[in-house]
């Protein structure tokens, strides 16, 4: 039995992180971010259409971490857990990255960016023109386009007559959700997702910081009640954000598993990130007494749980679509399970499920900080591949440029550096703002001395 840690062993006021100590990593991320932003600016102006996909991929990749961080504090509070108090601040800070993320995501609001991404928006914008000219509602105009076609001004302003397009019927029926002009449009929801996440993240960290002033248990209890209430809005936020940004890439496609599928990836990847951050902080000499092998073991077990959960959900999605064999649904897997993308699909099966599954089975590996951190790097990489595989295969077919747009991977890397580098830089620097763990949480010692 190792020494039982008491408050006398822990520094008064918690541990404050000095960014200078971790300058190497922070500097590298900052540099990557800066270079990425410069490159992204160039690509944005030279090849907006293909780059829009790169940007969506990079933004969504980082979005999953913010969502995941938010999920782990919510779950931890709602389930009245005490084991994770020592690492809770890591999640709180992760969730609070939502503001920089919203800024980085804002280019998606530009018509130039969302036009190549979401074909349905083009149809809706055409319908808006017809609606204006004929003095009818946008939905009626869409219906008009299905039956009669219509005259619209494109790009340079020249009038083009669109032939009747029966495929648009699906947009008429989906008008209630997929639209740009009602009070609950795509734009409104875009803002709402960030607002909800920001509200949750900010409130919970606020309570946590308030507790650092007075050490009162009532903040813990308040957070628990709050978490139980906001779990549902949180779940809806993740689900519909995933629908709006990814499923919307093909307006014919739908999958009821999608929200859960994305959520599973969020929780998985953000747990890997928090393990990596803890290891990094410990290697710099922080959190030596508050985090033990037991925390690694617990976090490793959750990582394992979500490895299996992700596999279960993603297979269920594949299975239902494969068996039902409905044209609108199968397209998603047709483009991802043929040509070059098939190799990526099989790689995801191996690397996203089988390898982490076998790796995380052993208790010894989960308890070893170095070994599990290496595993987490792999998990992070596989999560990247997973998001890439979800976004990018749409690009070639949608833009009419074949399966893979040649050379576009450079743009993907630029966007990834820009978003991930900037977010990483801001996140790690942001750790310095508060103590690295909630040092006056009444259940801190319970967490520090946890044995499972």
């Amino acid at each position: 039995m190792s020494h039982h840690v008491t408050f006398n062993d822990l520094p008064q006021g918690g541990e404050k992180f000095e960014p200078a100590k971790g300058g190497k990593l922070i500097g590298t991320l900052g540099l990557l971010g800066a270079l990425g932003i410069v490159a992204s600016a160039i690509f944005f102006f030279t090849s907006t259409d293909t780059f829009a996909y790169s940007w969506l991929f990079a933004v969504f990749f980082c979005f999953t971490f913010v969502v995941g961080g938010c999920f782990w504090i919510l779950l931890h509070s709602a389930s009245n857990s005490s084991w994770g108090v020592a690492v809770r601040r890591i999640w709180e800070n992760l969730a609070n990255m939502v503001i920089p993320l919203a800024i980085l995501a804002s280019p998606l609001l530009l018509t130039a960016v969302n036009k190549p991404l979401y074909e349905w928006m083009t149809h809706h914008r055409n319908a808006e023109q017809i609606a204006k000219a004929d003095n009818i509602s946008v939905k009626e105009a869409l219906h008009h386009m299905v039956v009669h076609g219509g005259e619209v001004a494109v790009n340079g302003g020249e009038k083009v007559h669109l032939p009747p397009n029966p495929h648009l019927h699906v947009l008429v029926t989906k008008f209630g959700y997929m639209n740009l002009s009602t009070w609950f449009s795509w734009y409104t929801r875009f803002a709402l997702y960030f607002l909800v996440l920001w509200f949750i993240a900010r409130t919970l960290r606020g309570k946590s910081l308030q507790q650092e002033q007075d050490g009162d248990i009532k903040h813990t209890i308040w957070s628990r009640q709050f978490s139980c209430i906001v779990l549902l809005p949180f779940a809806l936020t993740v689900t519909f954000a995933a629908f709006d940004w990814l499923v919307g890439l093909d307006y014919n496609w739908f999958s009821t598993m999608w929200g859960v599928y994305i959520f599973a990836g969020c929780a998985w990847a953000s747990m890997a990130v928090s393990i990596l951050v803890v290891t990094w902080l410990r290697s710099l000499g922080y959190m030596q007494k508050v985090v033990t092998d037991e925390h690694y073991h617990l976090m490793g077990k959750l990582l394992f749980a979500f490895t299996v959960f992700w596999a279960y959900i993603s297979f269920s999605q594949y299975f239902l679509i494969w068996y039902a064999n409905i044209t609108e649904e199968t397209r998603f897997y047709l483009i991802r399970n043929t040509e070059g993308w098939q190799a990526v699909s099989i790689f995801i099966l191996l690397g996203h499920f089988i390898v982490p599954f076998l790796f995380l089975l052993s208790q010894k590996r989960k308890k070893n900080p170095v070994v599990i951190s290496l595993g987490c790097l792999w998990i992070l990489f596989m999560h990247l591949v997973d998001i890439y595989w979800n976004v990018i295969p749409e690009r070639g077919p949608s833009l009419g440029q074949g399966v893979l747009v040649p050379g576009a991977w450079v743009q993907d890397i630029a966007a990834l550096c820009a978003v991930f580098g900037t977010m990483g830089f801001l996140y790690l620097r942001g750790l310095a703002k508060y103590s690295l763990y909630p040092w006056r949480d009444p259940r801190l010692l319970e967490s520090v001395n946890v044995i499972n």
Partner: protein
Amino acid sequence: MSTTLKRVHGYLAEFDSVKDLYHAAEHVRDAGYQRWDVHSPFPIHGMDEAMGNPRSKLPMFVFCGGITGTTIAFTLETITQTNFWSHIGLGFLQKIVETYPTVVQGKPTDIWTIPAFFPVMFELTILFSAFTTLFGLLALIGLPRWNHPLFVSKNFSKFSDDGFFVCIEARDPKFSQEGTKSLLEKVGGKNIELVEDEI
């Protein structure tokens, strides 16, 4: 005067607290005993290390059970619904079921129809794992059994309420009537008694 033959089960010693029990366990472990156990009303964190218990073999059993389940499901399904076994040169296996082929729902008969088999493979993996967990556990802890020699001791009934005990069994190669008793005394054992079981 009774002449019933009795068998020595071992020495039972009582301890006052978890702390005492924990340190006693460390001493018994260091003395090199193999067949002994600790009894307490609740689980004690770190007792496994204090007793020097190796990791349980159960996970290994469960892993093998799970793999067996997957394999059985895979074999059963592919034999009855695909031509996979003929393709790898084991066509005779297929002959067995050709009498009653079960190609349903017009699925392709090659191995790529495998997604349809995953649910069954998954279920059998879980089922076999659950069975090996339950029965492996029962086998490892020696249940079910009618009685246990320790129930002879009146004092031992405290183990489910507030008693902390160490019992060193007589079948341990290092067991001796004098040595074991003095060890238990040395580490602070109280109410030391020699538990004898009626044959």
